[in-house]
Protein backbone atom coordinates (compact mmCIF):
# COMPACT_ATOMS: atom_id res chain seq x y z
CA UNK A 1 0.00 0.00 0.00
CA UNK A 2 0.90 3.64 -0.47
CA UNK A 3 2.97 5.07 2.39
CA UNK A 4 3.58 8.71 3.18
CA UNK A 5 6.85 9.79 4.77
CA UNK A 6 5.67 10.68 8.25
CA UNK A 7 2.55 10.70 10.37
CA UNK A 8 2.72 12.65 13.60
CA UNK A 9 0.29 11.80 16.39
CA UNK A 10 -0.52 14.93 18.37
CA UNK A 11 -0.63 18.62 17.54
CA UNK A 12 1.35 19.87 20.50
CA UNK A 13 4.67 21.66 20.44
CA UNK A 14 6.90 18.66 19.72
CA UNK A 15 4.69 17.32 16.94
CA UNK A 16 4.19 20.70 15.31
CA UNK A 17 7.90 21.57 15.56
CA UNK A 18 8.77 18.24 13.96
CA UNK A 19 6.26 18.79 11.15
CA UNK A 20 7.54 22.32 10.56
CA UNK A 21 11.11 21.15 10.01
CA UNK A 22 10.02 18.24 7.82
CA UNK A 23 7.96 20.58 5.67
CA UNK A 24 11.05 22.74 5.16
CA UNK A 25 12.61 19.64 3.57
CA UNK A 26 9.61 18.86 1.37
CA UNK A 27 8.64 15.69 3.19
CA UNK A 28 5.06 14.40 3.05
CA UNK A 29 3.73 14.93 6.56
CA UNK A 30 0.36 14.48 8.20
CA UNK A 31 -0.30 15.67 11.73
CA UNK A 32 -3.36 14.18 13.42
CA UNK A 33 -4.90 15.98 16.38
CA UNK A 34 -7.79 14.70 18.50
CA UNK A 35 -9.09 18.14 19.49
CA UNK A 36 -11.01 20.67 17.41
CA UNK A 37 -7.69 22.33 16.57
CA UNK A 38 -4.07 21.95 17.72
CA UNK A 39 -3.84 23.49 21.17
CA UNK A 40 -7.41 22.71 22.17
CA UNK A 41 -6.29 19.86 24.45
CA UNK A 42 -3.07 21.44 25.62
CA UNK A 43 -2.23 23.19 28.86
CA UNK A 44 0.90 24.90 30.15
CA UNK A 45 1.69 26.71 33.40
CA UNK A 46 3.42 28.50 31.89
CA UNK A 47 6.27 29.96 30.08
CA UNK A 48 8.61 29.05 27.27
CA UNK A 49 12.37 29.64 27.46
CA UNK A 50 13.54 30.74 24.02
CA UNK A 51 17.29 30.94 24.41
CA UNK A 52 17.98 27.17 24.53
CA UNK A 53 16.06 26.58 21.28
CA UNK A 54 17.10 29.66 19.35
CA UNK A 55 19.30 27.79 16.88
CA UNK A 56 17.18 24.65 16.65
CA UNK A 57 13.95 26.55 16.02
CA UNK A 58 15.42 28.92 13.43
CA UNK A 59 12.61 31.14 12.15
CA UNK A 60 9.84 28.80 13.32
CA UNK A 61 8.61 31.05 16.12
CA UNK A 62 9.05 34.40 14.36
CA UNK A 63 5.85 36.35 14.95
CA UNK A 64 4.49 33.85 17.52
CA UNK A 65 1.68 35.00 19.82
CA UNK A 66 3.67 35.41 23.00
CA UNK A 67 1.84 36.89 25.95
CA UNK A 68 4.47 38.72 28.02
CA UNK A 69 8.25 38.69 28.27
CA UNK A 70 9.20 37.51 31.77
CA UNK A 71 11.32 40.19 33.44
CA UNK A 72 10.44 39.49 37.05
CA UNK A 73 11.13 36.12 38.68
CA UNK A 74 9.59 35.50 42.08
CA UNK A 75 9.79 32.59 44.43
CA UNK A 76 7.99 32.25 47.75
CA UNK A 77 8.03 29.94 50.72
CA UNK A 78 4.54 29.84 52.17
CA UNK A 79 4.19 28.99 55.83
CA UNK A 80 0.88 28.74 57.61
CA UNK A 81 -0.09 32.40 57.75
CA UNK A 82 3.24 33.90 56.76
CA UNK A 83 5.69 33.80 53.89
CA UNK A 84 9.00 35.01 52.60
CA UNK A 85 10.04 35.50 49.01
CA UNK A 86 12.65 36.41 46.49
CA UNK A 87 11.81 39.06 43.93
CA UNK A 88 14.34 39.18 41.13
CA UNK A 89 14.49 41.46 38.13
CA UNK A 90 17.40 42.34 35.90
CA UNK A 91 18.22 44.51 32.89
CA UNK A 92 19.43 41.42 31.06
CA UNK A 93 15.99 39.85 31.36
CA UNK A 94 14.38 43.03 30.07
CA UNK A 95 16.73 43.57 27.16
CA UNK A 96 16.92 40.03 25.82
CA UNK A 97 14.21 37.70 24.55
CA UNK A 98 14.81 35.13 27.28
CA UNK A 99 11.42 33.66 28.17
CA UNK A 100 7.78 34.38 27.47
CA UNK A 101 4.46 33.41 28.98
CA UNK A 102 2.09 31.74 26.54
CA UNK A 103 -1.40 30.26 26.31
CA UNK A 104 -1.35 26.99 24.41
CA UNK A 105 -4.70 27.16 22.67
CA UNK A 106 -3.49 30.36 20.98
CA UNK A 107 0.16 29.41 20.55
CA UNK A 108 -0.20 25.88 19.16
CA UNK A 109 -3.03 26.92 16.88
CA UNK A 110 -0.88 29.70 15.44
CA UNK A 111 1.97 27.26 14.76
CA UNK A 112 -0.42 24.76 13.14
CA UNK A 113 -1.79 27.50 10.86
CA UNK A 114 1.78 28.27 9.84
CA UNK A 115 2.30 24.61 9.02
CA UNK A 116 -0.78 24.45 6.85
CA UNK A 117 0.54 27.42 4.87
CA UNK A 118 3.59 25.27 4.21
CA UNK A 119 1.42 22.48 2.84
CA UNK A 120 1.36 20.19 5.86
CA UNK A 121 -1.94 18.36 6.39
CA UNK A 122 -3.15 18.92 9.92
CA UNK A 123 -6.22 16.76 10.52
CA UNK A 124 -8.22 17.79 13.60
CA UNK A 125 -10.86 15.76 15.48
CA UNK A 126 -8.83 12.66 14.78
CA UNK A 127 -8.18 10.29 17.67
CA UNK A 128 -5.78 7.48 16.92
CA UNK A 129 -6.98 4.13 18.25
CA UNK A 130 -3.97 2.00 17.51
CA UNK A 131 -0.74 1.56 15.63
CA UNK A 132 -0.52 -0.47 12.43
CA UNK A 133 2.20 -3.08 12.32
CA UNK A 134 4.10 -5.01 9.66
CA UNK A 135 5.77 -7.75 11.67
CA UNK A 136 8.10 -6.04 14.14
CA UNK A 137 7.82 -2.69 12.42
CA UNK A 138 5.36 0.13 13.03
CA UNK A 139 3.62 0.83 9.72
CA UNK A 140 1.11 3.59 10.47
CA UNK A 141 -1.94 4.49 12.51
CA UNK A 142 -5.57 3.49 12.67
CA UNK A 143 -8.58 5.55 13.73
CA UNK A 144 -11.89 3.73 13.47
CA UNK A 145 -11.96 2.33 9.93
CA UNK A 146 -9.41 4.82 8.65
CA UNK A 147 -5.79 3.87 8.23
CA UNK A 148 -2.79 6.01 7.41
CA UNK A 149 0.35 4.17 6.40
CA UNK A 150 3.70 5.90 6.90
CA UNK A 151 7.39 5.11 6.97
CA UNK A 152 7.67 6.79 10.35
CA UNK A 153 5.19 7.36 13.15
CA UNK A 154 6.09 10.11 15.62
CA UNK A 155 4.47 9.66 19.03
CA UNK A 156 3.95 13.28 20.04
CA UNK A 157 0.81 12.48 21.98
CA UNK A 158 1.67 13.96 25.35
CA UNK A 159 2.43 12.74 28.85
CA UNK A 160 -0.13 9.94 28.70
CA UNK A 161 1.27 8.70 25.34
CA UNK A 162 -0.92 5.78 24.39
CA UNK A 163 1.21 5.37 21.25
CA UNK A 164 4.51 4.86 23.06
CA UNK A 165 2.75 2.55 25.51
CA UNK A 166 1.27 0.44 22.70
CA UNK A 167 4.65 0.23 21.00
CA UNK A 168 6.17 -1.09 24.22
CA UNK A 169 8.47 1.93 24.49
CA UNK A 170 6.92 3.31 27.67
CA UNK A 171 6.21 1.35 30.85
CA UNK A 172 2.92 1.57 32.72
CA UNK A 173 2.61 4.93 34.42
CA UNK A 174 3.17 4.95 38.19
CA UNK A 175 1.81 7.59 40.61
CA UNK A 176 5.31 8.45 41.85
CA UNK A 177 6.44 9.59 38.43
CA UNK A 178 3.70 12.13 37.78
CA UNK A 179 2.10 15.25 39.17
CA UNK A 180 -1.16 16.88 38.27
CA UNK A 181 -1.37 20.56 37.45
CA UNK A 182 -4.64 22.37 38.08
CA UNK A 183 -4.95 25.84 36.61
CA UNK A 184 -7.28 28.80 36.39
CA UNK A 185 -6.97 31.53 33.78
CA UNK A 186 -8.24 34.75 35.31
CA UNK A 187 -9.07 37.84 33.26
CA UNK A 188 -7.76 41.20 34.46
CA UNK A 189 -7.31 44.48 32.57
CA UNK A 190 -3.84 44.92 31.10
CA UNK A 191 -3.04 48.05 33.14
CA UNK A 192 -4.08 46.35 36.36
CA UNK A 193 -1.64 43.53 35.65
CA UNK A 194 1.15 46.01 34.90
CA UNK A 195 0.48 47.86 38.16
CA UNK A 196 -0.05 44.89 40.45
CA UNK A 197 3.02 43.07 39.24
CA UNK A 198 5.18 46.17 38.83
CA UNK A 199 6.02 45.59 35.17
CA UNK A 200 5.81 47.63 31.97
CA UNK A 201 3.52 46.88 29.05
CA UNK A 202 4.22 43.46 27.51
CA UNK A 203 6.49 42.61 30.42
CA UNK A 204 5.51 39.93 32.87
CA UNK A 205 6.18 38.05 36.03
CA UNK A 206 6.70 34.37 36.82
CA UNK A 207 6.09 33.37 40.42
CA UNK A 208 6.52 29.93 42.01
CA UNK A 209 5.31 29.02 45.50
CA UNK A 210 6.29 26.17 47.79
CA UNK A 211 4.89 25.02 51.11
CA UNK A 212 1.41 25.54 52.47
CA UNK A 213 0.07 25.88 48.92
CA UNK A 214 0.11 22.07 48.68
CA UNK A 215 -0.38 21.54 52.44
CA UNK A 216 3.20 20.36 52.59
CA UNK A 217 2.89 17.82 49.79
CA UNK A 218 5.29 17.43 46.87
CA UNK A 219 4.48 20.22 44.45
CA UNK A 220 3.82 23.93 44.56
CA UNK A 221 1.91 26.85 43.15
CA UNK A 222 2.52 28.99 40.11
CA UNK A 223 1.46 32.35 38.77
CA UNK A 224 2.27 33.68 35.32
CA UNK A 225 1.07 37.00 33.93
CA UNK A 226 -0.31 37.00 30.39
CA UNK A 227 -1.40 40.08 28.43
CA UNK A 228 -4.89 40.34 29.88
CA UNK A 229 -5.07 37.22 32.00
CA UNK A 230 -3.26 35.55 34.85
CA UNK A 231 -2.45 31.84 34.82
CA UNK A 232 -2.69 30.67 38.42
CA UNK A 233 -2.44 27.11 39.56
CA UNK A 234 -1.05 24.34 41.66
CA UNK A 235 0.96 21.23 40.91
CA UNK A 236 0.83 18.29 43.29
CA UNK A 237 2.47 14.88 43.14
CA UNK A 238 -0.08 12.13 42.44
CA UNK A 239 1.50 9.71 44.89
CA UNK A 240 1.81 12.46 47.50
CA UNK A 241 -1.89 13.18 47.42
CA UNK A 242 -2.76 9.47 47.40
CA UNK A 243 -0.73 8.96 50.56
CA UNK A 244 -1.98 12.06 52.40
CA UNK A 245 -3.75 11.37 55.65
CA UNK A 246 -6.28 12.76 56.32
CA UNK A 247 -7.18 12.97 52.67
CA UNK A 248 -7.36 16.25 50.74
CA UNK A 249 -9.53 16.76 47.68
CA UNK A 250 -7.08 17.86 44.97
CA UNK A 251 -9.40 20.45 43.49
CA UNK A 252 -9.68 22.34 46.81
CA UNK A 253 -5.94 23.16 46.88
CA UNK A 254 -6.32 25.90 44.29
CA UNK A 255 -9.21 27.42 46.27
CA UNK A 256 -7.21 27.66 49.49
CA UNK A 257 -4.26 29.02 47.47
CA UNK A 258 -6.46 31.80 46.10
CA UNK A 259 -7.62 32.63 49.62
CA UNK A 260 -4.07 33.32 50.76
CA UNK A 261 -3.31 36.96 51.57
CA UNK A 262 -0.33 36.80 49.19
CA UNK A 263 -2.60 35.93 46.24
CA UNK A 264 -5.98 37.41 47.05
CA UNK A 265 -5.01 41.01 46.37
CA UNK A 266 -3.30 40.12 43.11
CA UNK A 267 -6.39 38.57 41.53
CA UNK A 268 -9.05 40.73 43.17
CA UNK A 269 -11.77 41.72 40.69
CA UNK A 270 -10.52 39.14 38.19
CA UNK A 271 -12.98 36.99 36.29
CA UNK A 272 -12.37 33.28 35.90
CA UNK A 273 -12.24 32.44 32.19
CA UNK A 274 -11.11 28.82 32.10
CA UNK A 275 -10.40 25.89 34.41
CA UNK A 276 -7.97 23.22 33.24
CA UNK A 277 -5.87 20.29 34.37
CA UNK A 278 -2.96 18.36 32.94
CA UNK A 279 -0.56 15.65 34.02
CA UNK A 280 3.19 16.36 34.24
CA UNK A 281 6.11 13.89 34.13
CA UNK A 282 8.13 14.38 37.34
CA UNK A 283 10.89 11.75 37.21
CA UNK A 284 13.29 13.77 35.09
CA UNK A 285 16.05 11.77 33.46
CA UNK A 286 15.06 8.55 35.20
CA UNK A 287 11.54 8.70 33.81
CA UNK A 288 12.44 8.98 30.13
CA UNK A 289 10.87 6.35 27.88
CA UNK A 290 12.65 4.44 25.14
CA UNK A 291 13.01 7.08 22.48
CA UNK A 292 12.82 5.06 19.29
CA UNK A 293 11.81 1.73 17.80
CA UNK A 294 11.52 0.38 14.29
CA UNK A 295 9.79 3.14 12.28
CA UNK A 296 8.92 5.12 15.39
CA UNK A 297 10.15 8.08 17.45
CA UNK A 298 8.86 9.48 20.75
CA UNK A 299 9.02 13.23 21.44
CA UNK A 300 8.17 15.87 24.06
CA UNK A 301 6.06 14.98 27.09
CA UNK A 302 5.37 11.55 25.55
CA UNK A 303 9.05 10.78 26.08
CA UNK A 304 9.01 12.33 29.55
CA UNK A 305 11.08 15.39 28.64
CA UNK A 306 10.22 17.60 31.61
CA UNK A 307 12.46 18.97 34.32
CA UNK A 308 11.47 20.27 37.72
CA UNK A 309 14.41 21.92 39.45
CA UNK A 310 12.42 23.26 42.38
CA UNK A 311 13.04 26.89 41.46
CA UNK A 312 12.22 26.41 37.77
CA UNK A 313 10.03 24.04 35.79
CA UNK A 314 10.62 23.36 32.12
CA UNK A 315 9.08 21.23 29.40
CA UNK A 316 8.02 23.13 26.32
CA UNK A 317 11.46 23.96 25.02
CA UNK A 318 12.42 20.30 25.42
CA UNK A 319 9.34 19.44 23.35
CA UNK A 320 10.27 21.84 20.55
CA UNK A 321 13.92 20.75 20.53
CA UNK A 322 13.04 17.05 20.50
CA UNK A 323 10.58 17.62 17.64
CA UNK A 324 13.25 19.38 15.59
CA UNK A 325 15.83 16.69 16.31
CA UNK A 326 13.27 13.99 15.43
CA UNK A 327 12.82 15.76 12.07
CA UNK A 328 16.59 15.78 11.47
CA UNK A 329 16.63 12.05 12.24
CA UNK A 330 13.78 11.34 9.85
CA UNK A 331 15.42 13.32 7.04
CA UNK A 332 18.58 11.27 7.53
CA UNK A 333 16.62 8.00 7.61
CA UNK A 334 14.80 8.87 4.40
CA UNK A 335 18.08 9.60 2.65
CA UNK A 336 19.32 6.13 3.58
CA UNK A 337 15.96 4.45 2.96
CA UNK A 338 16.34 2.68 6.29
CA UNK A 339 13.85 3.35 9.09
CA UNK A 340 15.01 0.64 11.50
CA UNK A 341 15.63 1.28 15.19
CA UNK A 342 19.35 1.11 14.44
CA UNK A 343 19.17 4.09 12.08
CA UNK A 344 16.77 5.96 14.33
CA UNK A 345 19.15 5.64 17.29
CA UNK A 346 20.68 8.80 15.79
CA UNK A 347 17.79 10.63 17.49
CA UNK A 348 18.99 9.68 20.96
CA UNK A 349 22.59 10.47 20.12
CA UNK A 350 21.65 13.93 18.88
CA UNK A 351 19.49 14.52 21.94
CA UNK A 352 22.47 13.61 24.12
CA UNK A 353 24.54 16.26 22.36
CA UNK A 354 21.78 18.83 22.82
CA UNK A 355 20.60 20.60 25.95
CA UNK A 356 17.61 18.22 26.16
CA UNK A 357 19.36 15.13 27.50
CA UNK A 358 22.32 17.12 28.86
CA UNK A 359 20.11 19.21 31.16
CA UNK A 360 18.03 16.20 32.15
CA UNK A 361 21.14 14.12 32.81
CA UNK A 362 22.94 16.84 34.78
CA UNK A 363 19.89 17.15 37.01
CA UNK A 364 19.19 13.43 37.24
CA UNK A 365 19.38 13.43 41.05
CA UNK A 366 16.91 16.27 41.36
CA UNK A 367 13.75 14.17 41.46
CA UNK A 368 15.13 11.97 44.25
CA UNK A 369 16.38 15.03 46.10
CA UNK A 370 12.99 16.70 45.90
CA UNK A 371 11.33 13.47 47.02
CA UNK A 372 11.62 14.76 50.57
CA UNK A 373 8.66 16.21 52.43
CA UNK A 374 10.96 18.63 54.31
CA UNK A 375 11.13 20.86 51.24
CA UNK A 376 7.39 21.21 51.10
CA UNK A 377 6.49 21.43 54.76
CA UNK A 378 9.44 21.86 57.11
CA UNK A 379 11.52 24.58 55.41
CA UNK A 380 8.53 26.61 54.19
CA UNK A 381 7.46 26.83 57.84
CA UNK A 382 10.91 27.37 59.30
CA UNK A 383 12.21 30.34 57.30
CA UNK A 384 9.12 32.58 57.40
CA UNK A 385 8.88 31.85 61.13
CA UNK A 386 12.47 32.97 61.67
CA UNK A 387 11.89 36.22 59.81
CA UNK A 388 8.67 36.76 61.73
CA UNK A 389 10.54 36.41 64.99
CA UNK A 390 13.29 38.78 63.91
CA UNK A 391 10.85 41.42 62.68
CA UNK A 392 8.43 41.34 65.61
CA UNK A 393 8.88 43.77 68.48
CA UNK A 394 6.80 42.88 71.48
CA UNK A 395 6.70 43.91 75.08
CA UNK A 396 9.67 41.76 76.03
CA UNK A 397 13.19 43.15 75.52
CA UNK A 398 14.57 42.18 72.10
CA UNK A 399 17.42 39.67 72.09
CA UNK A 400 20.35 39.96 69.69
CA UNK A 401 19.42 39.22 66.07
CA UNK A 402 22.10 36.58 65.73
CA UNK A 403 20.72 34.86 68.84
CA UNK A 404 17.19 34.84 67.39
CA UNK A 405 18.39 33.23 64.18
CA UNK A 406 20.83 30.84 65.81
CA UNK A 407 18.35 29.65 68.44
CA UNK A 408 15.63 29.39 65.82
CA UNK A 409 17.73 27.22 63.55
CA UNK A 410 19.00 25.11 66.44
CA UNK A 411 15.59 24.54 68.00
CA UNK A 412 14.02 23.75 64.63
CA UNK A 413 16.40 20.88 64.03
CA UNK A 414 17.79 22.43 60.85
CA UNK A 415 21.27 22.01 62.34
CA UNK A 416 20.68 18.44 63.49
CA UNK A 417 22.45 15.57 61.74
CA UNK A 418 19.40 15.05 59.54
CA UNK A 419 19.18 18.72 58.65
CA UNK A 420 22.87 18.97 57.84
CA UNK A 421 22.67 15.82 55.76
CA UNK A 422 20.04 17.48 53.57
CA UNK A 423 22.23 20.55 53.18
CA UNK A 424 25.16 18.31 52.31
CA UNK A 425 22.96 16.47 49.81
CA UNK A 426 22.44 19.72 47.94
CA UNK A 427 25.85 19.41 46.33
CA UNK A 428 24.48 16.46 44.34
CA UNK A 429 21.89 18.58 42.62
Amino acid sequence: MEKIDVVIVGGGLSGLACAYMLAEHDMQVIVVERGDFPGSKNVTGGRLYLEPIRELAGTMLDGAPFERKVVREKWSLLGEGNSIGIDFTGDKFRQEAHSYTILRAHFDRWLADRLMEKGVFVIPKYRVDSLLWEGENVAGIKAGEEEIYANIVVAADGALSFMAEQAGLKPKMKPKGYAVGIKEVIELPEEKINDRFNVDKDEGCAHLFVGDVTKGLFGGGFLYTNKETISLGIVVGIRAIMEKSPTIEAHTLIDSFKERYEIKRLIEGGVLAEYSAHIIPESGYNGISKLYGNNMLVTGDAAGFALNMGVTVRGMEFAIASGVIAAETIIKAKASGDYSAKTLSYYENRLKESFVLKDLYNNRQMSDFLDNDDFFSYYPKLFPALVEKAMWFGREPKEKLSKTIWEGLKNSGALSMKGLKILYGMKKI
Partner: protein
Amino acid sequence: MKVDEKLALDAFKNDKDSHIKIRHDICRSKCKAKFCLFICPGHLYSYDEETDEIKVEYAGCLECGTCRVACIEGAIDWTYPTGGFGVQYRLG
Protein backbone atom coordinates in the same frame (compact mmCIF):
# COMPACT_ATOMS: atom_id res chain seq x y z
CA MET B 1 -16.64 29.21 43.36
CA LYS B 2 -17.55 25.54 43.34
CA VAL B 3 -15.72 23.22 40.99
CA ASP B 4 -18.83 22.45 38.93
CA GLU B 5 -19.29 26.18 38.38
CA LYS B 6 -15.71 26.37 37.18
CA LEU B 7 -16.25 23.49 34.78
CA ALA B 8 -19.36 25.24 33.45
CA LEU B 9 -17.05 28.00 32.11
CA ASP B 10 -15.15 25.53 29.92
CA ALA B 11 -16.15 24.52 26.41
CA PHE B 12 -17.15 20.87 26.19
CA LYS B 13 -18.46 18.83 23.30
CA ASN B 14 -20.26 15.89 24.80
CA ASP B 15 -19.90 12.43 23.36
CA LYS B 16 -22.88 10.15 23.89
CA ASP B 17 -20.70 7.33 25.17
CA SER B 18 -18.39 7.62 28.14
CA HIS B 19 -14.65 7.42 27.49
CA ILE B 20 -14.22 6.27 31.09
CA LYS B 21 -15.38 2.78 31.99
CA ILE B 22 -15.30 1.55 35.56
CA ARG B 23 -14.83 -2.09 36.50
CA HIS B 24 -17.12 -2.19 39.50
CA ASP B 25 -16.06 -5.74 40.37
CA ILE B 26 -12.49 -4.49 40.93
CA CYS B 27 -13.67 -1.47 42.95
CA ARG B 28 -15.68 -3.76 45.21
CA SER B 29 -13.25 -6.60 45.65
CA LYS B 30 -9.84 -4.91 45.61
CA CYS B 31 -10.03 -1.16 46.21
CA LYS B 32 -10.23 0.28 49.71
CA ALA B 33 -8.62 3.67 49.18
CA LYS B 34 -10.90 4.98 46.38
CA PHE B 35 -8.33 7.54 45.27
CA CYS B 36 -10.60 8.58 42.38
CA LEU B 37 -13.03 10.19 44.83
CA PHE B 38 -10.58 12.91 45.88
CA ILE B 39 -7.83 13.09 43.24
CA CYS B 40 -9.87 14.24 40.22
CA PRO B 41 -9.37 17.99 39.49
CA GLY B 42 -12.97 18.12 38.28
CA HIS B 43 -14.24 16.22 41.34
CA LEU B 44 -16.23 14.04 38.94
CA TYR B 45 -16.17 10.73 40.80
CA SER B 46 -18.73 9.81 43.43
CA TYR B 47 -19.80 6.71 45.30
CA ASP B 48 -23.38 5.53 44.99
CA GLU B 49 -24.21 3.66 48.18
CA GLU B 50 -27.41 2.18 46.83
CA THR B 51 -25.80 0.39 43.91
CA ASP B 52 -22.38 0.08 45.58
CA GLU B 53 -20.85 1.64 42.47
CA ILE B 54 -18.36 4.37 41.64
CA LYS B 55 -19.93 6.86 39.25
CA VAL B 56 -18.16 9.35 37.00
CA GLU B 57 -19.55 12.45 35.32
CA TYR B 58 -17.46 11.88 32.20
CA ALA B 59 -18.87 14.92 30.37
CA GLY B 60 -16.89 17.29 32.61
CA CYS B 61 -13.61 15.44 32.20
CA LEU B 62 -10.55 17.70 31.75
CA GLU B 63 -8.67 14.75 30.20
CA CYS B 64 -5.65 15.00 32.48
CA GLY B 65 -5.57 11.23 33.09
CA THR B 66 -4.76 11.58 36.80
CA CYS B 67 -7.42 9.00 37.75
CA ARG B 68 -5.93 6.51 35.30
CA VAL B 69 -2.53 6.84 36.98
CA ALA B 70 -3.91 6.87 40.53
CA CYS B 71 -6.18 3.84 40.06
CA ILE B 72 -3.46 1.35 40.88
CA GLU B 73 -5.95 -1.53 40.99
CA GLY B 74 -6.72 -0.98 37.31
CA ALA B 75 -10.46 -0.47 37.69
CA ILE B 76 -10.53 2.63 35.49
CA ASP B 77 -10.48 1.89 31.79
CA TRP B 78 -9.69 5.33 30.41
CA THR B 79 -9.21 6.41 26.81
CA TYR B 80 -9.33 9.81 25.17
CA PRO B 81 -12.82 10.83 24.03
CA THR B 82 -13.60 10.27 20.34
CA GLY B 83 -11.92 12.82 18.07
CA GLY B 84 -13.58 16.25 18.24
CA PHE B 85 -15.30 15.51 21.56
CA GLY B 86 -14.52 16.36 25.14
CA VAL B 87 -13.01 19.53 26.56
CA GLN B 88 -11.90 22.16 24.03
CA TYR B 89 -9.60 24.65 25.71
CA ARG B 90 -9.85 28.18 24.31
CA LEU B 91 -6.91 29.48 26.35
CA GLY B 92 -4.93 26.49 27.59
